[in-house]
């Protein structure tokens, strides 16, 4: 932030390290992005039954994702309207009401205040409707992915999500009925570094993930089953990292949404699917049969090829390989990341089990891939204690990226087109002002 109060990110292909370290900037990110703009909250499959709830966080604010008695998925602030205590403590559960245990104020799971003990202490005409749990004023959903804005105004959800919507749908279409379920549990992780390092880097695989490449190279070809789709790309043989523009791209879609594109159409064979998701040959055959029946002989391979969008939906959701990743900034130098395998509705249990085991290979605190990302992020955070001038370089591919007529920017897979796309959006939203 300059003295003029204007936030800047990438200038002439350089970015000042303070956006990753400055506590004052982090405070403004909470206010201007997480407590105001559209953020991903959770998935409807986490609250499948009427009355189900799960605790979530928007920025720093405690919220409850609920499915009320009318089957509406709602986002409520977890704060009693009387004296402010949280009204829900369990991480998840099922309840028709939330009751504050301080003075017994009671709310329906849709948020309406229904009970005040000894109401004679208030005027008889007290309007309970004014004291329901605060609801996120705006909610948007795509295939069960629930987003919320805690501000009543600003860009509409449809406009915000438009550049990413197709890819969320493509991710879900790995299921023959087009639905994913986050019912396989979640890996909750934390590292000591800034949230903005995460994601969209098509350049790091060959170095950061060299250990996974060595494991894959050491496998007998015939038993090479366990790699996830993502791990293949992220394991980053030099060849896949530096593919040319025709087969692989770093893409800035607009509104901060970015993705890495790999042309997988030729891989959508039975062999590739079995290898990528750790499926047994019998399960692979059954899964492909279901997909063929659902999407048609001519289309199902395209559907499969597109079902790993490797997309970062700004600011805090990523759909990569077989998993859903949620980013939760805690402090300028501390970030929590949740990684949940996306299970497919409409497939045999064994197929989903294979997806889970394949997810664990690359993702999670004890896995072989993502811990090295966390480690590198912590090294950056330490490195930024050095105050070098001029600042960090984020110029890779700036000279060769192309702006398409629809505003989409295409670079080579290893270009920093993606990070520039995210930071351009960061700058725009940070300068839009704060909520009332």
């Amino acid at each position, binding site marked *: 932030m300059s003295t003029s109060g204007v936030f800047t990110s990438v200038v002439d292909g350089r970015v000042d390290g303070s956006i990753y370290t400055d506590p004052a900037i982090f405070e403004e990110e909470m206010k201007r992005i997480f407590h105001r703009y559209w953020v991903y909250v959770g998935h409807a499959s986490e609250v499948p039954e009427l009355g189900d709830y799960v605790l979530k966080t928007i920025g720093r604010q405690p919220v409850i994702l609920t499915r009320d008695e009318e089957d509406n998925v709602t986002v409520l602030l977890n704060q009693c309207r009387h004296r402010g205590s949280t009204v829900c403590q369990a991480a998840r559960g099922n309840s028709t009401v939330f009751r504050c245990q301080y003075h017994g104020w009671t709310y329906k799971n849709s948020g309406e205040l229904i009970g005040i003990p000894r109401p004679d202490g208030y005027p008889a005409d007290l309007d309970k409707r004014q004291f329901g749990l605060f609801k996120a004023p705006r909610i948007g959903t795509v295939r069960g992915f629930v987003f919320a804005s805690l501000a009543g105004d600003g860009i509409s959800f449809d406009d915000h999500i438009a550049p990413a919507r197709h890819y969320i749908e493509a991710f879900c279409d790995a299921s023959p009925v087009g639905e994913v379920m986050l019912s396989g549990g979640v890996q909750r*992780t934390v590292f000591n570094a800034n949230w903005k390092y995460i994601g969209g880097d098509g350049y790091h695989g060959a170095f950061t993930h060299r250990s996974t490449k060595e494991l894959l190279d*050491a496998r007998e070809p015939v038993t090479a089953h366990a790699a996830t789709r993502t791990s293949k790309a992220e394991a980053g043989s030099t060849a896949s990292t530096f593919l040319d523009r025709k087969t692989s791209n770093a893409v800035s879609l607009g509104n901060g949404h970015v993705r890495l594109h790999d042309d997988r159409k030729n891989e959508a064979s039975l062999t590739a699917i079995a290898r990528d998701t750790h499926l047994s040959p019998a399960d692979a055959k059954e899964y492909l049969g279901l997909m063929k029946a659902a999407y048609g002989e001519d289309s199902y391979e395209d559907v499969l090829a597109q079902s790993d969008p490797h997309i970062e939906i700004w600011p805090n959701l990523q759909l990569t390989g077989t998993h859903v990743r949620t980013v939760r900034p805690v402090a300028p130098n501390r970030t929590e990341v949740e990684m949940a395998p996306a299970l497919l509705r409409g497939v045999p249990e064994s197929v989903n089990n294979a997806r889970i085991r394949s997810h664990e290979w690359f993702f999670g*605190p004890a896995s*072989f891939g993502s*811990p090295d990302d*966390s480690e590198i992020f912590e090294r950056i955070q*330490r490195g930024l204690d050095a105050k070098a001038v001029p600042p960090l370089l984020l110029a890779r591919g700036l000279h060769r990226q192309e702006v398409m007529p629809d505003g989409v920017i295409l670079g080579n897979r290893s270009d920093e087109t993606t990070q520039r796309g995210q930071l351009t959006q960061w700058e725009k939203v940070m300068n839009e002002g704060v909520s009332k």
Partner: protein
Amino acid sequence: MTATAVRTSPVTDAETLARVERFLYTEAEIMDDHRYPEWLELWTEELEYWVPFDLADETPQGRVAVICDDRPRLKERLARFDGGYAHAQIPRPVLSRTVSNVLVDQVSDGTLEVRSRFVLTLLKHQWQTVTHAQEMVFSGKAIHVLEPAGDTLRIRRKTVRLSNVVLPLPNIQFLL
């Protein structure tokens, strides 16, 4: 690895208890010292190593885990640690664990089920500054299913109920 109900009976003879404890202490020392090939030798050919992410999970089926290894996956885990490119383990954390509360049951088929508790301290010391050092405590319950192998024991199955899973986990790039 599933929660099959097996008939067990408590083992009280001093010789067996001493043998089991000695085995657990040896395993702990090998894990603390990052001696990965030696650790692999403690396992039976067919093996299951499971660290659930949810303390309520009774089976890894359908649930994402911290670790869920069969022999090929475990061998990759150890090869990666010793391969020189597991950045998250460089420098290797300094580990020291205490194993106690050892309870041994004889499982009906002749194998032993051993429950124990551990407290593990970890020091991550990159950059050699106090500011950036990470001191962590990991604790939990281990359940070993041990089979006799000649005059020693081998691990057929190991489940670790890691207490720390109730909070977001930092990198777990060492053996539990």
